[in-house]
């Protein structure tokens, strides 16, 4: 495993192009494009204000930079550095900006969700979409880029509009049976749209592409409901994580619950392997604690850690959330399927330092990873069943069915890994710190614990 040197970035804006060749990072108001393998700077663009959001177009030729405060969006071309494009939303403000799947339209959500403006870079035409819903996930594009589903709310009712991305033709517009639609997501095969309600009501609705309601699923009433929803890459399963600390799996044929995964505080009677991160502090000499040493020699605080396999029964650390506050830190908030749909990684918010890995073939728990601090981010390798996670310290953790490994990021000055992104080839990882980024190149042979 090789680590590159550390580069500057701001706002955690660092993305690899869809074709995997370039790495774009934002440093304040500059956009830096590097080559992924050599990390040499290929292009450097300067925007008008601090970049709030940056994204690649699907053909990896253009980059969109949005500056929300100014209400501006600037689009840069990789092939033609001279080409420029500036979109000004005016006084209406800008809340979010995104590409369309064909890479030729920019969709801007204005402030207060007043409308969505669709800017065409081909024709400079503008279209508006009214009444977009202000919710967790109101827009989703299907994977093949043909259709866009948009959540709308008119007269206190939820609607879903399906647009054809080619020419923004409204294909279907139907009302949903939700109280307060919180999100929608296309299945990977693009034929089913999953729509779920807010946490006040547990309800998942499945609509076919042509707007017919296929099925409704509701596990229970009254208690706080759905926290997160994700599709399996093969579209076979829909995983629903809820506030009752359980994940329910629906199958695509009957849309009924196949199984549910529970996250108990005490694990016993399971064939899963429980990995526990154990830290080993290096001995500190008392005469060495001069200020100079403390500030400079941060290797003093770089503790070694390794994974130990814990024998059952295992007690996991639980943090009880404050019952009086809204959006309590309890329930399954993060779900991720591996690319081959074999594994599902989940995180339960009141056991924030534990990542659970479930085997979807056996429908049982495969592994439990207990870290020393709260897990901030985990992501599956796009090519193989390998999970990378970080907890905000200087280490990178990798899990694969063969074992578990903890790697220290070898940088001076203490690089705290806040989030990570896999390269689409699965050969490298982009680690993002607070103001820094670092690339980690994987060996082709996976290290085992």
């Amino acid at each position, binding site marked *: 495993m090789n680590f590159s040197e550390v580069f500057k970035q701001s706002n955690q804006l660092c993305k690899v192009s869809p074709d995997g060749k370039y790495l774009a990072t934002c440093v304040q108001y500059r956009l830096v494009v590097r080559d992924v393998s050599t990390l040499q700077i290929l292009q450097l663009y300067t925007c008008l204000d601090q970049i709030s959001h940056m994204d690649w177009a699907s053909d990896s030729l253009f980059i969109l930079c949005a500056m929300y405060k100014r209400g501006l969006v600037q689009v840069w071309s990789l092939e033609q550095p001279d080409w*420029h494009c*500036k*979109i000004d939303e005016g006084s*209406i403000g800008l809340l979010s900006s995104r590409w369309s799947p064909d890479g030729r339209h920019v969709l801007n959500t204005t402030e207060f969700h007043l409308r969505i403006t669709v800017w065409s870079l081909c024709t400079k035409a*503008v279209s508006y979409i009214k009444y977009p819903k202000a919710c967790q996930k109101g827009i989703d594009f299907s994977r093949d880029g043909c259709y866009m589903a948009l959540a709308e709310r008119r007269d206190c009712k939820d609607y879903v509009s399906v647009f054809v991305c080619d020419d923004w033709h409204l294909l279907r517009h139907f009302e949903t049976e939700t109280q307060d639609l919180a999100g929608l997501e296309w299945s990977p095969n693009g034929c089913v749209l999953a729509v779920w309600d807010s946490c006040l009501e547990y309800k998942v609705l499945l609509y076919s*592409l042509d707007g017919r309601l296929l099925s409704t699923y509701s596990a229970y009433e009254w208690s706080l409901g759905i926290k997160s929803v994700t599709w399996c890459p093969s579209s076979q399963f829909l995983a629903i994580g809820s506030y009752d600390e359980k994940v329910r799996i629906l199958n695509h044929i009957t849309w009924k619950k196949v199984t549910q995964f529970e996250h108990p505080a005490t694990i016993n009677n399971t064939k899963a392997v429980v990995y526990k991160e154990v830290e080993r502090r290096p001995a500190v000499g008392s005469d060495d604690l001069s200020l100079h040493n403390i500030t400079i020699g941060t290797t003093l605080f770089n503790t070694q850690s390794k994974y130990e396999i814990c024998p059952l029964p295992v007690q996991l650390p639980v943090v009880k959330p404050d019952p009086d506050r809204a959006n309590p830190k309890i329930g399954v908030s993060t779900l991720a399927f591996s690319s081959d749909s074999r594994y599902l990684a989940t995180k339960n918010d009141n056991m924030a330092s534990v990542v659970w890995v479930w085997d979807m073939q056996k429908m049982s728990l495969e592994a439990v990873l207990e870290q020393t601090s709260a897990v901030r981010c985990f992501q599956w390798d796009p090519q193989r069943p390998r999970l990378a996670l970080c907890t905000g310290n200087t280490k990178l953790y990798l899990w694969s069915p063969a074992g578990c490994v903890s790697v220290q990021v070898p940088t001076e000055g203490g690089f705290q890994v806040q989030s990570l992104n896999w390269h689409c080839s699965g050969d490298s990882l982009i680690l993002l710190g607070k103001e820094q980024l670092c690339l980690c190149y994987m060996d082709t042979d996976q290290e085992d614990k």
Partner: protein
Amino acid sequence: MGEWWTTVPIGTSMGNYDISSISHVTMSPLRQNNLVSMYSSLPLSKSSYNVISAFCTEDNIPQCISYMNQELASLGLSSTCIEASSPGGAGLSTVPALNAMYELLQIHRRNMGTLEELEKEQLKKSSSMEHMQMNNSRLKDQLELSIREKSGLHETERQLQLKIKTLQSCLKTEKEEVQKLQSIISSRASQYSHDAKRKERETAKLKERLGQLLVDRKDKKLAIDVLNCLGRSDGKRSHWKTAKATASHEGEMYKSLLSDYEASQRALMLENAELKKVLQQMKKEMMHILSPRQLSTRGADSDGEEKAGNSSRETLDQSCEHAREQLTNSIRQQWRKLRNHMEKLDSQASQVQNQLESNKEVIPRETHEDEMERMRHEVQQCKEFIHAQQQLLQQQLNTSFDDETAALLNDCYTLEEKERLKEEWRLFEEQKRNFERERKNFTEAAIRLGREKKAFQEDRASWLKNQFLNMTPFTDRRRCSSSDGQSALSISKFVFKFKKKYADTRFKSRSRVRCGDLSIFSLGEDENSLT
């Protein structure tokens, strides 16, 4: 009863009504009076306690007799009448008197007998009564106890009932509370939704207003500033929006949906076919497993029929629901049979296993015990052997290291040497003695030689004298002396020999004395050498 008392002479009775003197007699006052009067006829000097003995006296014999007759008649012994032996006399006719007495005795005995019986019965009855009383008291106690128990149980039952009631009421209250809470929640939810909707409408209005205002304002217009328009990503030209386009979009959408459905249907069909195949195989195998056994129990007809029926039906269209149902039913049936068979086998197997286990326990145990015996025996032998060896070794070790035995051994060794030494001493002594003897012989020989030498010297002297004398003209004597001369020659030879011998022996004897050599017989050699 007082009737016949009237015949008693009254004269004697009227005087005395002393009732108190006969207080122990329990009779009616009339009779008492009469009896008093009768008994007062007795001489008053007698005490009141000797009333019965004072019944008959010399004076009142006839009255007594008549009284007795009356009494006897009243007792039913009318046959015997006591008569006076002689009228006015003091005697009685014995026969009737004795009869009367005998009868009285009989009566008395009978009375006693009945009395005994009555007493016995009375005892019995009293004991039974006691028993009954005891029983009664015991049963009363029991009854009391059971009553108390019953009351206790009643009490507990009541309490439990009470508890049940309270719990039920609690449950009811809880249920009511739950319902209430649910209704509260629902009402609050509806309230919230209503409020939220109201607020939403407000914000929608605000947004509209804002939008209007923003659109109306001209200062900051929204615009796009592009250097040059881009081509479409797929390189084609954009099309006009026409109805045909919409239709084509719809068509596209339906196409994609259909293709997805077809794909899933294909997958399901494949899965279905595989599962059916598996089921069929399972069924065949199950039938196969069951059939050889069932052929022995039942006729093969039913099974064979089933088989044939099934196979024929299955050759029909397999997607037909009827066939599917049949397949599943037949599989269920076979599975049931197999399960029963397995259960039977299981029970049999467990039985056999129990047997086997018990057998196993017995047989191996025997062999095990034999083996154990043998091994113990072996072990014992080995132990003994080792013990013996150890002892011997100990002995041997002890003999080399023990002082006494060492001394003994040493003595043995010195003894051997001593013996040898003795032997050698003996030899030495012997040799010494021999040597002494030789020496003695030799000295004797030397003395003899000395003497002979002296004799020889004398002889010589005389011969020489003779010779000298002879040498004178005495020639005659030559002839005579020739023999003498011969004799002289021989004598000179002899002297010569003798001298030599003497010298030699002297020399040799010295040397022999020095050497101690035993070879004395070398004298003979010299003798030989001289001649």
